[in-house]
């Protein structure tokens, strides 16, 4: 895992129907240290996905630079693992085949892949579902696969765009706790996009509040770890921080 830096990043979309330019991101700079967990929050349409898609290399930047581990990003690559809101699992591949897709692409042998599948399915608590197809799993299980599929490819940075937004509230809390646990054990570098303030505060070391395409404020989250919801729902510091971020988001 390596650090990530956004330097004066901007993005302008062209609307071919109206013939107008629309600035979605203007002059965003951000540093994410190696092994850090940064959440980006902001109201819908403020440019969260745009930033993530540029880091992932899915959409070109209009200005500025994105550096991952000292190298400038040009297009998508296996150094940046992505977890999608819609899971984006391959429906024609089993759970194990999905998880080992990255290793397969870099030429890992069958034995190697079997070991990787075993390790990461255990991490996701899905060892029993290795040979099932994604559509046979619940939404929560599918996203567990989505997360370990990205992790199993050993990316420098993990990019997550509202990954838990389409599962039910109970499952979401479980997934958040599981992700925290994985992060606390393995310390991947994570950028986590969400519109859910308490999710951001629960997971991250730092919450970046985005407003109309620029950074409104960076809020440090010095809550102790390990974090579990049972401890934090009643925690005063958690409440204060959440309220503070919520106020910022509502102003945004």
């Amino acid at each position: 895992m390596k650090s990530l830096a956004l330097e004066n990043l901007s993005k302008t979309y062209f609307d071919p129907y109206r013939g107008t330019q629309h600035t979605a991101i203007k002059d965003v700079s951000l540093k994410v240290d190696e092994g850090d967990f940064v959440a980006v929050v902001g109201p819908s349409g403020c440019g969260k996905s745009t930033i993530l898609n540029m880091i992932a290399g899915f959409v070109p930047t209009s200005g500025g630079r994105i550096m991952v581990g000292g190298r400038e990003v040009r297009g998508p690559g296996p150094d940046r693992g992505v977890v999608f809101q819609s899971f984006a699992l391959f429906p024609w591949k089993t759970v194990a085949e999905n998880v080992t897709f990255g290793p397969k692409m870099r030429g890992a042998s069958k034995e190697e892949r079997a070991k990787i599948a075993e390790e990461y399915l255990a991490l996701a608590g899905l060892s029993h579902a290795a040979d099932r197809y994604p559509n046979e799993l619940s939404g929560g299980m599918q996203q567990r696969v989505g997360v370990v599929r990205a992790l199993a490819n050993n990316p420098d940075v993990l990019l997550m765009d509202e990954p838990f937004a389409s599962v039910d509230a109970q499952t979401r809390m479980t997934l958040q706790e599981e992700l925290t646990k994985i992060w606390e054990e393995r310390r991947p570098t994570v950028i986590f996009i969400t519109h859910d303030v308490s999710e951001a505060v629960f997971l991250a070391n730092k919450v970046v509040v985005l407003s109309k395409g620029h950074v409104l404020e960076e809020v440090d989250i010095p809550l102790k770890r390990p974090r579990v919801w049972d401890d934090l729902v009643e925690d005063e510091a958690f409440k204060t921080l959440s309220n503070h971020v919520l106020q910022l988001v509502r102003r945004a």
Partner: protein
Amino acid sequence: MTAIYTIWGYYARWTARWPAMAAFVPFVPLIAAWGFIAWLEIFPPVFLPGPVEVVERAWTLLYKGILTDYLADSLSRLAVGAAVGMCIAIPLGVLIGLSRRAHDFAWPILLFFQAIGDIAWLPILLVWFGFGLTTMTFVIVYTVLFPVVLNTVLGIRSVKPELRRAAQSLGASKPRILLEVTLPGALPNIITGLRNGLGYGWRALIAAEIIVGTSGIGFLMFDARRAGSVEEIVVGMIVLGILWYIVDSWFLAPIERATGQRWGLVTS
């Protein structure tokens, strides 16, 4: 009422054991009606033979080996034509589906030739290739081509962009993405296209055999007309229906179930 339910229960269990039989049952009243009308002799028997005469005729044809020979001829023509058609249509569809430029270039041509139905080609094909296998193969290839190309294009385009993005972020190269993501994603549509294409191709083949054939089920039917054997014509018609049912429900539908439905891409 309960008696009806009991009988229905027996029927449901019995058809669950033998699904092929279940497909035959709806034809029972149809055949009965046919037999009844033929028995009334509203139409003279040389116009409308009864089921018994037709079955007898089918048995004779089978016994002489004519039916099986002609069947084999028709089926192998369909198989060759469909195979050639797919070999052209699938790569073409993939290309058009992937490349904007290929699409812009090929689409008008495709639509133009789609309008010229398969049979409309026969006059010029007869001039070029005469009465023979080339002409018939051309017609089938032509018929299979369009539904497969159009459905392949549709399939390629309906693959969710997120899946390609996911593959890119996992380090897949362009050829690997095509192989591991785009083609499997398009497969259900390709199979639908194939199913349609074979259905049209089968009908086109019979038409072609009627006009240019020297063997085959279409030829059998047309030849029977010349000989004045209505039984034989009806045998040909029935064989066409049965055969298509077998091809579709024993081969094509299971492939569809094993792919798209299994993966949750199409709901049954």
